[in-house]
């Protein structure tokens, strides 16, 4: 992939450092008067999720990372690999447990997810922003009790546990924001 110079570094650009793909979050050009200029760059490792600060000598280059994001449909998992398919090309990819570590508790078969591919291999799966899931287990809660805003825990069909209001019952469908893990509303079938 093409090389990028520090003056092309900006939020969203993906580069390779030490063999790993990073997303640039911030790039600050700094120069002590009449001295060597540097770029202080904040970057996120796309494999580990860790954010680090790195200072580059200004004018240096980094190799661009072949990272793409594609919408793909979740098919199934066999415990070790999670299978996704691009609905237009029928192209299939397999993501390992690391890539689905956040998504696996939200996704049902046929959900459309954003798959991040590095050199064609999935490294991270982002679930849809909102999912609708059935509650498989929750206590009845006290009818009509709207006081004490704590709510109650509910286990969803994917295994995820979220806090829901007391009036929501087992078997009902709920909408959840996957970015925060929070209950949004009930869903009428």
């Amino acid at each position: 992939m093409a090389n990028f110079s520090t003056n092309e570094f900006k939020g969203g650009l993906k580069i390779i450092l030490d063999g790993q793909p990073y997303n640039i979050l911030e790039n600050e050009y700094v120069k002590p008067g009449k001295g060597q200029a540097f770029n202080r760059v904040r970057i996120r490792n796309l494999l580990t999720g860790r954010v680090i600060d790195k200072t580059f000598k200004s004018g240096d280059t980094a190799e661009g990372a072949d990272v793409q994001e594609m919408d793909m449909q979740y098919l199934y998992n066999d415990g070790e690999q999670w299978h996704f398919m691009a609905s237009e090309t029928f192209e299939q990819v397999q993501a390992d447990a690391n890539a689905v570590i956040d998504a696996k508790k939200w996704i049902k078969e046929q959900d459309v997810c954003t798959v991040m591919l590095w050199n064609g291999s999935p490294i991270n799966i982002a679930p849809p922003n909102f999912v609708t899931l059935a509650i498989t287990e929750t206590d009845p809660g006290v009818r009509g009790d709207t006081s004490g805003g704590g709510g109650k825990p509910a286990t969803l069909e994917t295994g995820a546990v979220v806090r829901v209001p007391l009036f929501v019952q087992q078997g009902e469908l709920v909408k959840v924001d996957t970015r925060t893990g929070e209950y949004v509303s009930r869903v009428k079938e």
Partner: protein
Amino acid sequence: MEAIRARAQLLRSVRDFFYSREVLEVETPILSCAGLPDPHLHSFQANSFFLHTSPEFPMKRLLASGSGSIYQICKVFRQEEQGRLHNPEFSMLEWYRDGYDYRSLMKEVAQLFAALLVDQIELSAVETISYQDAFLQHTGIDPFAETPDGLMEYLRAVGIDWQASVELDRQALLDLILLHQIEPKLGKGRLTFLIDYPAEQAALARLAQTSQGHWIAERFEVYFQGIDLANGYTELANADEQRQRFAADQRYRAAQSLVQIPVDQRFLAALEAGLPACAGVAVGLDRVLMLQLHKQSLAEVIAFPVDRA
């Protein structure tokens, strides 16, 4: 618009300051057939001409012709990235005081900043600290004694993660430490003058020896709120030494595969003819305006920063 009106007021205040001190305002060309071989400065070129990175050379030619103390407010151009504190085209105030040295000039510089940043600076609280003391105080390192390996060890110890295509030399490593560990601590709530730079960072400043025998440049940088606002020195008046420094810069450029810059022979001739003892300083007016208005970036106070020019 607030920034535009404030800039007009800033320019007026600067002119009033010098008018009352009888310093003459001058205009010198932005274009020159020559440039500055400083390997860290990259000039714009227009056909066979260079756009100046500072009005220093023609102003010194005026001084050598007997102009007396002079100042200029002009745009300067540097091929640098745009950043929070950088725009490739920016406003410079540069002035030279006939008969002063860097210490006497620093007093006047403090007075100017106290006038421009009137609610923010107390003249009685100005701090002056040497490059060596600043390093010792904030990092425990002696910049004159520490080896490049020692500097790299320090950087790793404080968790500064850096990357460079070539091995960084001693000066670049000192710059890296200055940037990360020292600059943010300078000028906190008051003006700080950082003085007596290592001789390698002398640029066009006169050299002197400290009581410890270290060669230092009679140079100062002014910091406020961690931001570098001005750079000044006792001017080097020795033509031979200046010629040698230019030659050293050209060699450094060649070693880094940078283009050679034609040296300003007319400037050197003026030094040969005799530059009066003087001290000069260059101030980044956009940064001063930014601080005056309590803004966070140059882009907020420049009418059309380079990405919208």
